[in-house]
C-alpha cells in the first residue's frame, strides 16, 4: 500500500471524527423530541465566529475560544428551546421544519449584517502546526479536533446511558407524559438536551475554525454533511453518528483520491442510498 494512501485514510478518519462531533447535537435533539433542526449548520457557524471573536479581540486560542463557544451556544440552545421549539413542537411537522429553517436564516443573516460577507480565517499557527510522524503529516488542529470529537461523542453516549440525568432524558424521549407522572419535568430535560446539543455544535465550530474558512454561509455546507451523517448513523443514536462520521470521512477521502474529487460526493451518496435501502433506520437507529 502506498504511503499516500495511508495519508489519505488518516486524513479521512480525522475529517470523519469532526463530522461526528457536529452531528452528535443534531442526533441528540432528534432522539429526544423528534425535531429536525435545520439551523444546525448555522449553530456550528456561530461557534466558528465565537472562536474568531475570541482570537481577534482577546488574542486567545482554542483554550479560551472552545469553552466560550460551548457556553454561548448552550445558552442560545436554551433560549431557542423556550422561545421557539417548545411552542412549535405542538404544531404540525411543517411548522417545525419552517420554524428551524427560519431560525437558520435569522442567524445566518444576522452574522452577515454584523460581520459582513468577507471570508475570515484564524492563523495557521494558533494550534501547534504540523507533526511529521514516520512520513505521515498530521495537522495539529485537525488532530485536536478529531480527538476532542471522539472524546465528546463518547462522553455524550456515556451521559445518556450511564447517568441518572441521561436516564431521565431517555425517559422523556420515550414517553413525556409517563415521565411527568414519575416526577420528571419534560421541559427541563428537553431544555438540557438543547443546551448539550447546541454546546456540542459550538465546540465543533470553535475547533473547525482552526483549519477551515469562516463565512456566514458556511453552515449550509456543513449542515448537509451533518444530515447525511445522522441518517446514516441512525437518527437519535450518538455512537451511530460517530461510526457514520468516520465512515463518510474515509469514503470521501478514498474516492476523492482514487476515482476523482468531483465524483466523491456521488460515491458517498450512492453508498448512502444503497445502505438505507436495506437498513432504513441507519446503522444503529431503532425502527
Amino acid at each position, binding site marked *: 500500500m502506498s504511503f499516500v494512501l495511508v495519508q489519505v485514510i488518516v486524513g479521512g478518519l480525522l475529517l470523519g471524527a469532526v463530522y461526528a462531533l457536529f452531528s452528535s447535537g443534531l442526533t441528540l435533539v432528534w432522539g429526544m423530541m423528534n425535531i429536525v433542526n435545520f439551523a444546525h449548520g448555522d449553530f456550528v457557524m456561530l461557534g466558528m465566529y465565537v472562536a474568531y471573536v475570541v482570537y481577534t479581540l482577546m488574542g486567545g486560542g482554542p483554550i479560551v475560544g472552545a469553552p466560550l463557544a460551548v457556553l454561548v451556544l448552550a445558552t442560545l440552545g436554551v433560549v431557542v428551546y423556550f422561545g421557539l421549539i417548545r411552542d412549535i413542537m405542538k404544531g404540525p411537522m411543517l411548522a417545525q421544519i419552517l420554524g428551524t429553517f427560519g431560525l437558520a436564516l435569522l442567524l445566518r443573516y444576522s452574522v452577515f449584517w454584523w460581520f459582513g*460577507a468577507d471570508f475570515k480565517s484564524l492563523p495557521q499557527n494558533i494550534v501547534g502546526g504540523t507533526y511529521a510522524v514516520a512520513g505521515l503529516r498530521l495537522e495539529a488542529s485537525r488532530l485536536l479536533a478529531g480527538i476532542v470529537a471522539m472524546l465528546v461523542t463518547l462522553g455524550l453516549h456515556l451521559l445518556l446511558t450511564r447517568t441518572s440525568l441521561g436516564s431521565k432524558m431517555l425517559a422523556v424521549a420515550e414517553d413525556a407524559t409517563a415521565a411527568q407522572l414519575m416526577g420528571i419535568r419534560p421541559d427541563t430535560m428537553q431544555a438540557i438536551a438543547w443546551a448539550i446539543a447546541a454546546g456540542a455544535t459550538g465546540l465543533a465550530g470553535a475547533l473547525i475554525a482552526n483549519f477551515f474558512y469562516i463565512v456566514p454561509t458556511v453552515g449550509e455546507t456543513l449542515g448537509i454533511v451533518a444530515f447525511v451523517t445522522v441518517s446514516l448513523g441512525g437518527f437519535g443514536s450518538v455512537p451511530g453518528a460517530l461510526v457514520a462520521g468516520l465512515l463518510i470521512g474515509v469514503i470521501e477521502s478514498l474516492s476523492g483520491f482514487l476515482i476523482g474529487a468531483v465524483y466523491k460526493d456521488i460515491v458517498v451518496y450512492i453508498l448512502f442510498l444503497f445502505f438505507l435501502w436495506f437498513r432504513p433506520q441507519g446503522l444503529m437507529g431503532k425502527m
Partner: protein
Amino acid sequence: MALKLATRLLCAAVLSVVLAGGAQAEDKVVKIGVILPMSGSTASIGAHAKAALEVATDIINNAHPELDKLPLANNAGLAGLGGAKVELVIADNQGSPATGQNQALRLITEEKVVAILGAYQSGITLTSSAIAEKYGIPYLTPESVAANLTERGFKWFFRTTPIAPDFVRIYDEFLSDMKAAGAKTDTIALVHDNTEYGTSVANTITAGFKAKGRTGVIDVAYAVNATDVQAQVLQLKEKRPDVVLMISYTSDAILFAKTMQSLDYKPPMLLADDAGYSDPSFIKAVGKLSQGVFNRSSFAVGPAGSPSAVIADMYKKKSGEEMEDTVGREMQGFFVLVDAIDRAGSTDPAKIQAALKATDLKPEQLIMGYKGVKFDEKGQNVLASAYIIQLQDGENYVSVWPKGNAEKAPLMPYKGW
C-alpha cells in the same frame, strides 16, 4: 376615528405629491441599473463592487481634473446631456439566476433605467441579459467570462472583460517566457471547480494549450464549496506537475492554501486564474501561506499620479480595501457604458446602443491594462488583455509580466510560507 385616519391619509397624499414635484424640479438624472450579488456566498464581491461603482459615480458627477485623461472625469456630470448626473440603482441578484432575471425586469419596467450593468456570476448574466435583450435596453457585463454569453447573437449585449481565449494566449506567452528564463513548464495541472466558470475556463485552456503544442496537461476537478481538499493536494503531490494552475472561487482557494501547507506541498510554480485569488479576503486569510503565487489580473496600481493609482487611492479611502482586478473591471465597464451614454447625448436606448458600437477607447483613457476598448459584432471587447501579477511578500500583488509593465522581476520557485 375614521375621520382621523382619512385626514392622515390625505396629508400623506399631499406630502407625497409635493415631494414628487420637488424631485422633478431637480437636475436631470440618468439612472443606470446594476445587478450584483449583495447576499449569498459571493456577497463579499458585491460589497466591494458597489463601493467601486460609487467611486466611479463620484468621478463622473464631480470635476476631477487630476484624472483628465479619462473621459467624463474633467467636468461635473455628463457634458453630452447638459451636465446630467448619473445615479446607480443597485439590485441584489442573491446568487440566483431567477432572481437576477426578476431584478432586470424590475429595473427596466419600474425603475426606468437607461442601461444595465451586471451581474458578476456568468450564470446570472445569462438570464438577466436575456430580459434586457427582449426590452431593447443596453446591457454591459464588465466581469462575466463564460464564453457562451457573447455567442447568442444578442444585439444589446456588450462585454469589456478579457475571456477564456484571451487567458490561453496570456498563459501560453507567460509560460514560454518563464521557460526561456529557466523554469520547467512541461507538465501543467489544471485545478478547477465544477461550476460554469471552472469547467468552461478549464476546457478552453486545455483545448488552447493542446493547439499550441502543450500536451502535459493534467485535469484535477473538484466540487465547488468543498469541505476538504486533501485528496486533490495529495494527487498533485504524487503527480508532481511543473505548474499548478488554479481556477477557484474564494472559499476553495483558502482551503487549498491551508491544505497545501499542512501537507507540505509546494509546486515549483503556482499560477492562479484571478477569481478567488484576487479577493482581498483571500490575501488577508492566507496570503502569508501563498507567497509567490502568480495571478492573472488586468489591474496594476502603476506609478504615483497615474489614473489607476489615483483611483486605487480613492477606492481604498472608500472601502478600506486594496483595489484589485475584479472591482477594477467593474469600474472600467461602468466608465465605458457611461461614456457611450454621454456620446449618445440622449437616453434613447437605440442611440446608446449605436454609441456603444462606435466605442474606440485608447489604453491611456482606461484604468485597466486593456489594449483599448472596441467591440466586435458579438459585443466582445477585442482589445481586452491582462497582466501577470505576483504576491511576492504575501501582502500585495506586484505586476511582473509582461516586461513593459513589470514593477518587479518574477520570483521563482514558489515560496509558499
